[in-house]
């Protein structure tokens, strides 16, 4: 029952995203940047989803350390993995936006660079988990790493901003693109759909994590017999 509900929610989220593609394509090009500007409709929601997922990961890591309940450890790994997936979406869309607008695939601006470092850091989290065998140790280490990584997020962001203001950087455009009010509604829908999708993915991943733990205990049982 619960699984069906989850899948239904996932399908709804995908449906909203798919419907919005056509609505977005129908919008007139943005005055300054043309159609490429509309990548924002996927870019921003994926960042919101990634941010939500990674904050969830931090909170569940702390909760794990406080309660030692493995439910929270599973939530932390599920949320981090989904967060990394959405970070990847954000990076990919960012790159594809930068190409027509800035003329290069990658710009070392504050947001893109800190996003990349964030991605590397949380990819490190997943690798660390992968390398630790013993479940209790793995959960403890991962939680500690998650906390240390989250502390770094604002520091990374601000330091890169300072760095770029002192260095020759690609030309920055100070004025924002124009954003008609009827676009905001679509943006809202897309954010909602992405976050919903993230939640569904986290729950599915959570179930898998539980299945993995069941497998581990079955293995140990088989080993003990």
């Amino acid at each position, binding site marked *: 029952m619960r699984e069906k509900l989850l899948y239904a929610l996932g399908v709804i989220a995908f449906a909203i995203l798919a419907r919005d*593609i056509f609505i977005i*394509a129908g919008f007139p*090009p*943005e*005055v*300054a*940047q*043309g*159609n*490429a*500007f*509309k*990548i*924002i409709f*996927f*870019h*921003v929601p*994926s*960042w919101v989803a990634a941010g939500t997922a990674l904050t969830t990961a931090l909170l569940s890591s702390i909760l794990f350390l406080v309660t030692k309940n493995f439910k929270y450890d599973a939530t932390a790994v599920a949320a981090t993995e*989904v967060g990394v*997936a959405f970070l*990847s*979406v954000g990076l*990919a*869309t*960012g*790159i*594809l*936006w930068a*190409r*027509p*607008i800035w003329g290069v695939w990658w710009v070392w601006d504050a*947001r893109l660079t800190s996003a990349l470092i964030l991605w590397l850091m949380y990819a490190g989290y997943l690798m660390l988990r992968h390398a630790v065998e013993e479940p209790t140790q793995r959960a403890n280490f991962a939680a500690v790493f998650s906390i240390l990584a989250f502390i770094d997020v604002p520091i990374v962001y601000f330091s890169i901003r300072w760095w770029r203001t002192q260095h020759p950087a690609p030309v*920055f*455009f*100070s*004025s*924002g*693109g*124009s*954003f008609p009010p009827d676009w905001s509604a679509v943006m809202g829908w897309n954010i909602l759909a992405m976050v919903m*999708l993230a939640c569904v*993915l986290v729950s*599915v*991943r959570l179930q*898998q994590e539980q*299945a*993995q733990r*069941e*497998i581990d205990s*079955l*293995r140990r*049982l*088989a080993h003990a*017999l």
Partner: protein
Amino acid sequence: MLSNGSLMHWTLPVLLAAQVSPEDVTREIGRLQRNFEFLSYGFAAAWIVLTVYVLMMVSRERRLKREITGLKAMLEDRQKR
């Protein structure tokens, strides 16, 4: 966020200074269509990344199910003996 605009800064002044000829307009339209191309790339990228992740999940789901059934069968087998 991608709210940074924009070509306003230089495209329009350039167009004005050049007394916008029809060729310029066609070129500009071409440019915007090119951007349309990148819009579709952007959407495609987002979908591809998500789809790949979902596919990874599905394959993991299958592997887990297979392992669980395998282990359970093995345990039953051992307990019978």
